[in-house]
């Protein structure tokens, strides 16, 4: 086996005339947390289904944990855990029985099963509610149970399709930390799809961006941000005038300047230093109270990537 938990070459899947996944070549290093980003309908879920052998490829090839998706999908499913679009929990069964079922599915013996369920539920703060029917749980709790289910049999690879969808920010952060801790502790490779770029930025070692079935780039979050993200600054002060704004906009390093109440929002060219700008503003007679320097967020990088033609970003690592 290579150092990659997932490796695809020109993987393609069509639905009629639509190329839902179009010649995607990906490499996910073993032990990493990989974030698969893309707008709605980009082909994220389809990619995941292909990797699990739930859909057949129309072209190209892919191996997961060294097994071929077309011929050895059963072995892939044996060694992976999933949280798909829906939590997939049996609403009529209790939390415990749901996990019990999947423990039996993966041939965990009684002792191992009990110990593992207890360990995971305690970790997720759900042990006291183990006998509650799944219907009676909040969305966040269900997601947690589903994460526990995905990790139950200590799979070496876990697929998570938008794990934090529908969660409030606090619950999303908590779940993210749980996933991160459990993955690190057990050395599990995680492949997660998400729209939440802040999330991807915080936990992923590596991200891939897909749009209209095509992989635009595969890189680290920091790299992606610096590739396309803009530097920004927010300056709070008094005495901004139309003429000073116009002069500011005329500066070569300033790409845009917008005044909202007493806050000046700047978008700056790559490598722009802030102190000279502050000096310049002071000379213009502006009284400055606060200066906040922003790095370009992954979100901006993402939007920029989506807006680009995409042509120059298609030289994927292959």
């Amino acid at each position, binding site marked *: 086996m290579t150092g990659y938990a997932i490796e695809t070459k020109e993987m393609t899947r069509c639905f009629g005339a639509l190329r839902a996944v179009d010649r995607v070549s990906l490499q996910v290093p073993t032990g990493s947390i990989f974030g698969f980003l893309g707008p709605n309908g980009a082909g994220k879920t389809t990619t995941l289904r292909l990797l699990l052998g739930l859909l*057949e490829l129309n072209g190209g090839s892919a191996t997961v944990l060294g097994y071929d998706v077309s011929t050895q999908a059963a072995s892939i499913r*044996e060694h992976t855990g999933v949280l798909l679009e*829906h939590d997939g929990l*049996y609403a*009529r069964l209790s939390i415990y029985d749901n996990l019990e079922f999947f423990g*039996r599915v993966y041939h965990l013996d009684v002792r191992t099963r009990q110990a593992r369920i207890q360990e995971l539920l305690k970790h997720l703060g759900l042990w006291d509610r183990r006998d509650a029917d799944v219907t009676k749980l909040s969305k966040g709790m269900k997601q947690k149970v589903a994460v526990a289910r995905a990790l139950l049999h200590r799979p070496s690879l876990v697929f998570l399709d938008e794990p934090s969808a529908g969660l409030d920010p606090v619950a999303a952060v908590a779940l993210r930390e749980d996933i991160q801790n459990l993955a690190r502790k057990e050395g599990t490779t995680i492949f997660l799809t998400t729209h939440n770029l802040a999330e991807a930025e915080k936990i992923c070692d590596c991200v891939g961006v897909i749009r209209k079935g095509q992989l635009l780039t595969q890189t680290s979050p920091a790299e992606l941000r610096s590739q396309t993200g803009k530097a920004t600054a927010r300056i709070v002060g008094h005495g901004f005038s139309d003429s000073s704004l116009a002069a500011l906009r005329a500066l070569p390093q300033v790409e845009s300047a917008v005044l909202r109440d007493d806050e000046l929002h700047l978008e700056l060219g790559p490598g722009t230093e802030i102190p000279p700008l502050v000096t310049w503003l002071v000379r213009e007679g502006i009284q400055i109270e606060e200066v906040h320097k922003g790095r370009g967020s992954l979100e901006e990088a993402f939007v920029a990537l989506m807006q680009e033609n995409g042509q120059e970003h298609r030289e994927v690592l292959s």
Partner: protein
Amino acid sequence: MKDISTVVWKELSEFWRARGGSRARLMSFLPIFFVFGVFWPLQGREAWVTVPFLPGFLFMILPLTLAGGTAADSFAGERERHTLETLLATRLSDRDIFAGKVLATTIYCTALVWACALISLITLNVSRGSNPIFWYSEISVFLIALGTPLLAVLMTAIGVLVSLRAATVRSAAQTFSIVTLLVFIGVPLLIQALPPAMQASLVEMVATANMTLVALAAGTVVLAASIALLALGIARFQRTRLILEE
């Protein structure tokens, strides 16, 4: 085998848990137990003793009416409640999932009939007082012991086939009732369409035939039909196809 029994365990737990708290669960079976175990035996006390096949025939109503709906809930319900894809993403094979579900439905219906048969036995013997102990005739024992699971498998197979493609339990149940209606209306119509001479000989055959033979023949037909339908079901129960029909 282990995987099939895991699926059976899950399905039976779901059937059981679907009926609310444990008190509510027992209560929900009471009407069935009352009708099949108390009401009918008392109503037709003499007939139950003198017409050998009557109890057996009556109990067949249960698998006929219950199995299809239960199977529809088991297969289409999994899709409707969005658990199908996760189940298909596990290590379980298509065959094990399919077999486990069919087996669970069959066990459920059979257990219900056997419970009713037992209650009837108690009811009849208690109500008959000191008369000789009542026990089912051979033909009824045959129907209860073997006919029930056979018929349950057949109805399950039909239920599975109509619900494999159905998005919801409701649409599966609708198709299922249309199919069973067609069978119930179609068979008599077919017989009526036969030439009078053939009809007469058919009636005569049934009237004079040895009931054991008729039951065996019917059993064989049901078995053959079940095997054929199940084979069709297995052929169509493939995860790469099921996913597309989400």
